C-alpha cells in the first residue's frame, strides 16, 4: 500500500500541512527538534488512531484549537481509500472513505504500518510491558478479532482488580469473584492462543531474516513466556482448563495482593539466539539485530496476511545501525515497501535506495520538498 497524500490540520504545532508522496522512499531531513518525528507520528496516528509517543490524545491538538484532523489518501491493492482521524474534546472520530466508523476496531488495519524507532532497539532489553505492547500492536493491525478479545479482556480485568481491592471488606462476595474469573478465562484463552499462533508465524520470518543479517552465524527463536502453566500445543478448551486450575491455586494470594496475578497481561516474550537468552547474555549488537529482524519479519508477515506490504516508518534509526545492518535494511525495502525515514543527514550513506529517494526538509515545523 501507498500513501499518496497526507493532510493535517491543527495537529501538534501545525496550522495546516498538505503533502503528496510519489516516491517509494521519502527521506525527511532536519535538525533536531524541528518536527521530523511529528510527520511520522501523523502517519502512525492515521493508522493506529493513537500516538506512539503519548497516551494523551489532547497533546495532539494544537494549542487553543477545538480539534486536530489528519487525513490520508491511500492506494491499496483493492483500490483507493480515504482515511480520516479527528480528535476533539468529545473524543476521537474515525472515517473510512468519509464514512464514520462506529468502532475503532473496524478502522484499525485499513492502513498497515511498521514503525522502527530508537525505543524499539530496547525491545529486547526493556520491560515486559514493551514486549507485550509490540505483540498487541502488530496483531491488532492484522486481526480485528484479536483486538476485540484483548479489549474485552482488559475491561473484565479492570472490574476484577477493582473487586479484589475490597477482598477483605464485609460485603465481599466470593460468588461475584467467581463470575468475573469465569468471564475472564475465555478471553484470556483467546488472547494467549492467538498470540501463540502469531508468534509461530513471526518466528519463521524472523529467524530467516536474522540468519541473513548475521550471515548464517546466528539462529533466532522467539518464545512466549506465559504467567500460567500453558503451552503452544494447547487448544482453547485446554487453555481454559489450565487457567481455571491456576486461578484456583492463586486465589488467596490474589486477595492478599489485591490484583489479578495470572493472564496475558503478565506474560512476556523471550528471544533466544544460538540457544542463549539474548536479554541476559546477548551483546548490544545482537540485541539490535534481533530488534531489526523482528521489525523486518513483521513487514513480511503483514504482507503474507493482507497480501500487501505495509508502510514502514523509520524514525532516526539509520544512524543507530552499523553499515552492514543499514544496508540490509535498505535492501529489504528497495522498490517494494513505501518508507518514510527521518534523519539529521544522509551524508555517508551511499545506497541505491536512498539515492533514488525523494527528500523533504523540515525546518521550524515547515515541510518543504527538496529537488
Amino acid at each position, binding site marked *: 500500500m501507498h500513501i499518496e497524500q497526507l493532510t493535517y490540520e491543527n495537529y501538534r504545532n501545525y496550522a495546516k500541512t498538505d503533502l503528496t508522496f510519489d516516491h517509494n522512499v521519502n527521506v525527511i531531513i532536519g535538525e533536531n527538534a524541528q518536527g521530523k518525528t511529528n510527520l511520522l507520528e501523523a502517519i502512525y496516528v492515521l493508522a493506529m488512531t493513537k500516538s506512539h509517543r503519548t497516551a494523551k490524545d489532547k497533546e495532539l491538538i494544537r494549542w487553543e484549537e477545538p480539534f486536530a484532523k489528519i487525513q490520508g489518501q491511500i492506494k491499496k491493492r483493492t483500490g483507493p481509500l480515504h482515511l480520516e482521524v479527528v480528535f476533539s474534546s468529545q473524543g476521537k472520530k474515525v472515517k473510512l472513505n468519509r464514512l464514520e466508523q462506529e*468502532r475503532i*476496531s*473496524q478502522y484499525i488495519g485499513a492502513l498497515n504500518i511498521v514503525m522502527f524507532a530508537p525505543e524499539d532497539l530496547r525491545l529486547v532489553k526493556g520491560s515486559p510491558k514493551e514486549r507485550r505492547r509490540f505483540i498487541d500492536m502488530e496483531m491488532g493491525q492484522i486481526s*480485528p*478479532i484479536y483486538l*476485540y478479545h484483548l479489549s*474485552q479482556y482488559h*475491561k*473484565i480485568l*479492570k*472490574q*476484577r482488580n*477493582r*473487586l479484589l481491592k*475490597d477482598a477483605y471488606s464485609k*460485603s465481599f*462476595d466470593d*460468588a*461475584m469473584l*467467581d*463470575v*468475573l474469573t*469465569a*468471564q475472564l478465562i475465555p478471553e484470556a484463552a483467546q488472547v494467549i492462543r492467538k498470540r501463540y499462533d502469531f508468534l509461530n508465524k513471526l518466528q519463521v520470518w524472523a529467524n530467516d531474516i536474522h540468519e541473513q543479517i548475521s550471515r548464517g552465524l546466528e539462529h533466532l527463536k522467539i518464545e512466549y513466556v506465559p504467567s500460567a502453566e500453558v503451552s503452544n500445543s494447547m487448544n482453547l478448551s485446554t487453555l481454559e482448563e489450565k487457567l481455571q486450575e491456576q486461578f484456583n491455586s492463586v486465589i488467596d494470594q490474589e486477595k492478599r495482593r489485591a490484583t489479578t496475578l495470572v493472564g496475558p497481561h503478565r506474560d512476556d516474550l523471550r528471544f533466544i539466539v544460538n540457544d542463549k537468552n539474548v536479554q541476559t547474555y546477548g551483546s548490544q549488537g545482537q540485541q539490535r539485530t534481533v530488534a531489526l529482524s523482528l521489525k523486518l519479519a513483521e513487514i513480511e508477515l503483514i504482507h503474507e496476511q493482507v497480501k500487501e506490504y505495509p508502510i514502514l516508518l523509520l524514525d532516526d534509526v539509520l544512524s543507530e545501525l552499523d553499515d552492514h545492518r543499514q544496508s540490509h535494511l535498505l535492501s529489504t525495502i528497495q522498490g517494494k515497501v513505501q518508507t518514510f525515514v527521518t534523519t539529521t543527514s544522509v551524508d555517508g550513506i551511499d545506497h541505491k535506495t536512498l539515492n533514488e529517494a525523494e527528500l523533504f526538509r523540515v525546518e521550524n515545523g515547515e515541510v518543504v520538498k527538496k529537488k
Partner: protein
Amino acid sequence: MQYPEPISKLIEGFMRLPGIGPKTAARLAFYVLDMKEEDVFDFGKALVNAKRELTHCSICQHITDTDPCRICEDQTRDRSVICVVQDSKDVIAMEKMQEFRGQYHVLHGAISPVDGIGPEDIHIPDLIKRLQDETVQELIVATNPNIEGEATAMYISRLVKPTGIKVSRIAHGLPVGGDLEYADEVTLSKAIEGRQEL
C-alpha cells in the same frame, strides 16, 4: 451574551437532559417562548406528573402509575416465566414484540465493581425473593450483551441454578433482515459460535 434569568434557567434545565448541549438547549428554550401558554402549562404538568405519579412496581420494579403494575396484575399472563432486564425501557421494547407473555423483573442497572455497583445495589435480592414461591419455572436473562450485562447474567444464573429453576440467556448474533456483509467481524464470530443445526 447574557440571557434574561428565566431563559437561562430554562436552558440549564434542558441541558440536564441526556444528549442535549448548550446550543440545542437554547433552541428548545426559545421554542418554548413561542408556544401557546396552555401548551406550555400542559407540558410542565406532564413533566411533574410523570415524576410524581410514577413509582416502581413493588413486584417487578418496572415504572408504573398503579401498584402492582398492569403487567403484574394481568391474570392472563404466564406466571411461570420471568424475563430479567436491566431497564424499564427494555420492558417497553420486549412488550412491543407482543410475543412474550410472561412476567418481568427490572434490575435498574448491571453489576460493575468499577462503578461501585454490586448485586445488592440492583434488584437481585428482590428477584430471589420472587422465586421462593413455586410458580416460577424459568428465568430468561435479557441483560445487555456487554461485559457488565454478561457478568450480571452469570451471577444470577449461579445464584438461581441450584434451586432447580431453568435459567436461559437470550441469543446474540446477526440482526434479522440484515446483510451478512455489513456485519462486523465480532458479531459474525459470535454468530458462528452460536450456530444451530438445521
